[in-house]
């Protein structure tokens, strides 16, 4: 056993104390019919060779390419201070702070996380973390159902495809209705369709969900959508990319009730999809409906400031089948990463991240359009946009052969939409360089000549 401390003598001592000869005696309550004798896997692998195996596997991934992939996961500069803190055993080898007296480190960092996300979103109640952006969005949709006691939500088709799919999975199970809202040619959600859907008084709407920026990178008419939703007694859910909040109107600015989003851009590495950070925030009015952990500030018996998990009657371990969600283990360490990231990068830094991404994206748009590859949509965008190019999948593959990842072929997500059959979703961040943009343009020219 590579990490076990027990010597043969230790085991003998324990068996002795138990008055048994063999540890097998402790497994005799497993009925013989279902008892198995071992696992058919190779024996222990020493760390030396295991490390070699892992290095070889990691090396088979190719991560150094010129890439314009975003679509819900973004490469950013992460100050090494973040990992320095994440590597501290006191944080990463502890668990849910059930014993607040010896968990103030975790508790205060969660409180700080809640506060920072509250600052970013303008919403006062922040759940201490959900699995990812998709699950947070699904939970947000479920929240609107619980809060309004209505059974139907409207979700723009221009929300991240995975989030719509995930919410659909959750909703199908709970026998709730999810209707998708169409988009206009400019890339924004069709508000007249929204208005029409809200008008159906037979099927009252619990919540309206829009992405901002949406999956096409486009800014949505959030204020107007919120006005329509509220007028129909529905709650407004904004699905955001958190870095954009440094420069874009916040959910609170346009009156949204709930905000969901993917926290990965806040200092969390790409890792092929996880662990990431599901952000979920709401107005104070919805504090009883929000699922997941909440930490509150209080005092100890000596009056010292202290933090503790609170309003726990929403949670599964207390409320069981009437809990707001089944969530237990969450993404606490990722929330810590976001907390350290935001503290280390600061308000000026975060604004620079957002604005630099925008500037680089504009540079990219220019280079591509000069290469004869125009945008698909006309509405304003921040740092991600779709371009139209004939034979997009083939071009994408040809560019890949030249070590350029030309974003995401949107046909993968919208196979039935002729508008998007020839679209590539491309993105820039502060890490994108002019040289990379040039390489893209050059490769494109080669591929198309």
């Amino acid at each position, binding site marked *: *056993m590579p990490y076990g*401390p*027990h010597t043969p003598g230790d085991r003998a001592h324990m068996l002795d104390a138990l008055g048994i000869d063999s540890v097998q005696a402790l497994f005799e309550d497993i009925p013989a019919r*279902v008892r*198995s004798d071992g696992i058919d*896997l190779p024996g222990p692998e020493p760390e030396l060779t295991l490390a070699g195996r892992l290095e070889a596997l990691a*090396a088979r*991934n190719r*991560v150094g390419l010129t*890439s314009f992939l975003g679509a*819900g996961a973004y*490469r950013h500069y992460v100050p090494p*201070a973040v990992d320095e803190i994440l590597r501290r*055993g006191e944080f990463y080898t*502890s*668990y849910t702070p059930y*014993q607040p007296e010896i*968990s103030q480190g975790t508790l205060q*960092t969660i409180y700080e996380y809640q*506060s920072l996300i*509250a*600052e970013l979103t303008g919403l006062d109640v922040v759940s201490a*973390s959900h*699995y*990812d952006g*998709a699950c947070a969005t699904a939970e947000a949709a479920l929240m609107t159902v619980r809060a309004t006691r209505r059974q139907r939500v409207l979700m723009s088709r221009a929300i991240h*495809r995975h989030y719509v799919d995930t919410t659909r999975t959750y909703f199908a*199970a709970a026998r709730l209705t999810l209707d998708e809202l169409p988009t206009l040619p400019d890339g924004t959600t069709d508000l007249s369709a929204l208005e029409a859907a809200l008008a159906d008084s037979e099927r009252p709407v619990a919540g309206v969900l829009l992405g901002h920026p949406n999956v096409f990178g486009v*800014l949505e008419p959030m204020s107007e959508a919120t006005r329509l939703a509220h007028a129909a007694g529905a709650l407004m859910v904004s699905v955001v990319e958190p870095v954009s909040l440094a*420069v874009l*109107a916040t959910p609170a*600015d346009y009156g949204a009730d709930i905000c969901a989003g993917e926290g990965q851009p806040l200092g969390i590495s790409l*890792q*092929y999809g*996880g*662990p990431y950070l599901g952000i979920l925030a709401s107005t104070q009015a919805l504090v009883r409906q929000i699922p997941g952990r909440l*930490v*509150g500030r209080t*005092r100890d*018996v000596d*009056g010292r400031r202290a933090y503790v998990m*609170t*309003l726990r*009657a929403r949670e*599964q*371990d207390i409320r069981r*089948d009437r*809990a707001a969600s089944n969530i*237990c*283990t*969450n993404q606490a360490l990722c929330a*810590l990463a976001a907390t*350290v990231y*935001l*503290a*280390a990068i*600061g308000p000026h830094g975060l604004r620079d991240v957002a604005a*630099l991404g925008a500037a680089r994206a504009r540079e990219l748009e220019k280079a591509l359009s000069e290469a004869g590859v125009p945008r698909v949509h006309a509405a*304003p965008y921040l740092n991600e946009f779709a371009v139209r190019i004939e034979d997009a999948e083939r071009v994408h593959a040809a560019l890949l052969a030249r070590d350029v*990842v030309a974003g995401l072929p949107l046909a993968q997500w919208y196979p039935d939409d002729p508008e998007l059959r020839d679209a590539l979703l491309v993105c820039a961040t502060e890490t994108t360089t002019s040289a990379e943009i040039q390489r893209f343009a050059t490769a494109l020219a080669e591929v198309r000549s």
Partner: protein
Amino acid sequence: MTDTLEQTTKIPAGEGSGTERTNRELEAAARENEISTPDRDFTDARGAPHRGDGMGPRAAVGPSPQPTLAELSRPGRGDGKLPHAPADALDAIPEEQRRARPLGLPELSELEVIRHFVNLSHLNYAVDTGFYPLGSCTMKYNPKINEWAARLPGFAALHPLAPDTLAQGTLELLYELERMLAEISGMRAVTLQPAAGAHGELTGILMARAYHESRGDSERSEVIVPDSSHGTNPATASMAGYTTITVRSGADGGVDLDALRSALGPRTAAVMLTNPSTLGLFERQIVELLDAVHEAGALAYMDGANLNAVLGKFKPGQAGFDVMHFNVHKTFSTPHGGGGPGAGPVGVGEKLVPFLPSPRVLQEADGSYRLERSGERPTSIGRVRSFQGNVGVLVRGYTYIKAHGGSGLTQASEDAVLAANYLKQRLAGSYEIPYDRACKHEFIATARPLKAATGVRTLDVAKRLIDYGFHPPTIYFPLIVDEALLIEPTETESLETLDAFADALLAIADEAREDPETVKKAPHTAPVRRLDEATAARQPDLRWSPMTGAESPCPT
């Protein structure tokens, strides 16, 4: 704000809710403790927070309370990470789409950031600092090679939408991990996507629903769970649109077979069993239980959170379970991260394979790997999350399984069970052991007799353990045992540690008789003493007051 929910429900004292205290009780307790001292401030006359001010002498080394980031913030601090964006970067953003309110994030130098979090870390207890016998949570050692592996740039920097050809290393790892978990569990196939145990439960129950519906069997609306089950089980049933039916446990701690039989029926979609149970006991009637479930046309779900007890000894798939989840962060040693992340892969038997969430990892004829394309398998329940799962956690789990191999995993279970039984034996004199048979990786002890004799409750014993240098076990869970202590030593703690922990619990039992007040007021040596949880819930303070925001000139 008054929280009406809190007024009508109960607030747990500590973990679980066996002996919940109402707000009223908590308030009374608070009054009793005379909470009147004002919140000690971290700011001085100039509004500057710092150590040493207003709090008198304090130690240079050791835990000390920290101000918040907001209190530390000074406009104009912190810079140098990024070039400044060109002034016209946002010109294309319409005015009304721009952020209106100030961006109120704290401004700190990097030193202040590091010091803040390093000092906060000193307020935490963790596996890396001491024994953490939190029952049901398997706080075993987290090998450092796992952390190293997950941070290899090839793994860490891989974009989740990278074309398959760029992701062959990770895809191979995931593919192999699925197969290893299938072998370990005896299940037919595995999905690695769920982010945690509860997420796995939901995924599993959704597959059960899809299975029944695929057969036109659509009247099933109930999920049965034992009364000892973890809260996630009934909560999952609700999320999946099912009604929860709870069956009681028998006197020996096992599920009451007769009670289960009478609960089962044509409305039963699934039965969720935890085995070994949350009492640390193997269901001795597991064969009969499974037969009963299947006879009723229901599916048997195994909550595999306790798999650490039976690796190589019991394979749920072979025994007849139709679906189960793993807790990678328990059984396979990935760290708990202060509450997460984990990973909750789900294994299924033949019947449920078609319903696995998408995308699956597939192997091509040429040996290469690819992700299933969206819509490729219409029977799938669909997506349960974005992308492919908590891959960084799965890399750690893979590493752990490889380091142990089949025999090492079996040995781990044997050692975990041996340690638990040994510890149980050592405590038997001073604490009541309600289920007096061989336990698996954890066991229940109770302070019931102690409470009767001295008034000292399980909560007090737990808090007093802190003064002895230990993290308390899980308390007041499962709910069916009065004054429960659920103790899980794991296989990675030395005999000396087990003995020291037993000694401490025995010493506390003595103290309870000789000096109950000391125990009831514990902890005495932690960074803070018992908290006013009532006020926390009555007047929730969930964030610092909004900051003025970064109106300051950008530092240069």
